[in-house]
């Protein structure tokens, strides 16, 4: 069995094979592989005995489910009004400089993807961002630089 087949089967065993399990399964795939490939969608359809189009429809509706490959760490900077008022653009500029990518891109080593997102519910502590599930608030350019350095350091020591 291929890796994706094994992953999807494992998730279906864990969450069940009814329609109510579809979102948890897709979330599980994203958790492991950062995105849902076409192969994965076809595999989910087979496991749940539904059409691949149905899986595709759900997979492409939600902003936290991606169908294109993303980096290991997905950075989502809140772009909604109060974060914008408190310096979201400077935060993004700094991230672009530190990571050497533009908004929407992934670093060459496949480690970081830089995205914007809608309101993170941290408006009183803006600007805010998520790195995968972890929230970071009251950001300044200096602060994001040190956060990214910490992640890079972590990656180096992991290898």
């Amino acid at each position, binding site marked *: 069995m291929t890796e994706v087949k094994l992953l999807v089967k494992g998730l279906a065993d864990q969450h069940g094979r009814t329609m109510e399990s579809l979102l948890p399964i897709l979330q599980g795939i994203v958790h492991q592989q950062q995105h849902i490939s076409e192969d994965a969608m076809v595999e989910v359809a087979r496991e749940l005995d539904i059409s691949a189009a149905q899986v595709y429809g759900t997979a492409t509706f*939600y902003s936290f489910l991606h169908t294109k490959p993303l980096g290991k760490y997905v950075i989502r900077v809140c772009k909604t*009004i*109060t974060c914008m008022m408190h310096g979201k653009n400077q935060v993004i500029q700094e991230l672009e400089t530190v990571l050497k990518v533009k908004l929407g891109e992934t670093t060459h080593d496949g480690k970081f993807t830089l995205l914007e997102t809608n309101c993170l519910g941290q408006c009183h502590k803006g600007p805010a961002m998520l790195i995968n599930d972890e929230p970071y608030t009251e950001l300044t350019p200096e602060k994001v630089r040190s956060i990214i350095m910490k992640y890079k350091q972590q990656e180096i020591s992991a290898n």
Partner: protein
Amino acid sequence: MKKNLQRLDLIFKNEHDTEAILRKTLDRSHDEVINDLISSGLKGRGGAGFPTGLKWKLAAEAQAEQKYVICNADEGEPGTFKDREILSSVPHKVLTGMAVCANIIGSTKGFIYLRSEYKFLKPQLLSVIDEFHKLLEVLNINFKVDIFMGSGAYICGEESALFESMEGKRGEPRNKPPFPTDFGYMGEPTVINNVETLAHTYSILKYGADKFKDLGIQDSRGSKVFSVSGDTPNPGIYELEFGMSLQKFVDDFGDGDSKAVQVGGASGFCVPRKKFVKTVIGYQGKLRGTSLPTGGSMMIFNSSRSMYNVLHNYLDFFVEESCGQCTPCRVGTQQLLLGIQAVKKGEQPSSYLDKLLVLAEAMRVTSKCGLGQSVANSFSSIVENFKEEMIY
């Protein structure tokens, strides 16, 4: 009647009487508890303001084998963050409310639909739920709560879109009626309440309906948790008595230079300085003309802010978050955005704004759900009150 409205600390009060409340409530008849909730005047704190007691009553009367209780923690309205705080500091109050509701309507299964932006809360929440399940077992209450994670879609805060999402589908709202109390999750009778609403039921069950009713004014009873952000020296979460005038609010929270307050987030209303005095925060907006309901989002803008940029940001938000199912909302949001850009650039005359206002009204009348219907709230209130800023 003039009342001195004040800050409160009910919701976040550190109290742990879940067991006592459940025991007390189990001894009472279901009708008694429902009548208590109805007479307390508690209305949905997500923003729509449906009477909570009535919702429970309708679900209790519905005939079905399986019923569900769902806590809506898909807090996505820009400027709102109170539910995150409630779930992280007093989750047991929310769970208590859910268990009482389940007992009354005859449900054994509950869910917390948690937005993916709040996934970091999940481990802690799961351990609280574990403890809670143990207590329910002791009390011989057959009710289990699961967390269902959202995946980043504002529209899933709309209850029927939330059900669709839980059923594995795209989060596209359903036609109403039927309402959730008849046909909710999996087509079964479902009570879906906002996080804060459920936490309030804890206070009502503990302190009694009268105590709750004493707070607030007229149709807006009890207290409300507000999320305050923007140009304020004191951003944060505050519990205030319902019915406060916006002037008082700005006096307390503004930076001395507030030119507008957005009440209710991107889908709410923008109130300019000259209307602060006669605007009251509460339900029944249509009837009294000057009162505004809100899910609790209060964003303050001072005179350094461009209201064009604010509106542009809201419209960007709606263009992305419209589910695309119905044409008025899908096309309307995009056209409103293109429209204000064209006026700003001088490609369209300023009178074009009037056409856009008509379009916004058409969206209010013809959109399928609250998202498309409420775009006109912020659009019209900003364009009408800050017309010069849209043009120059």
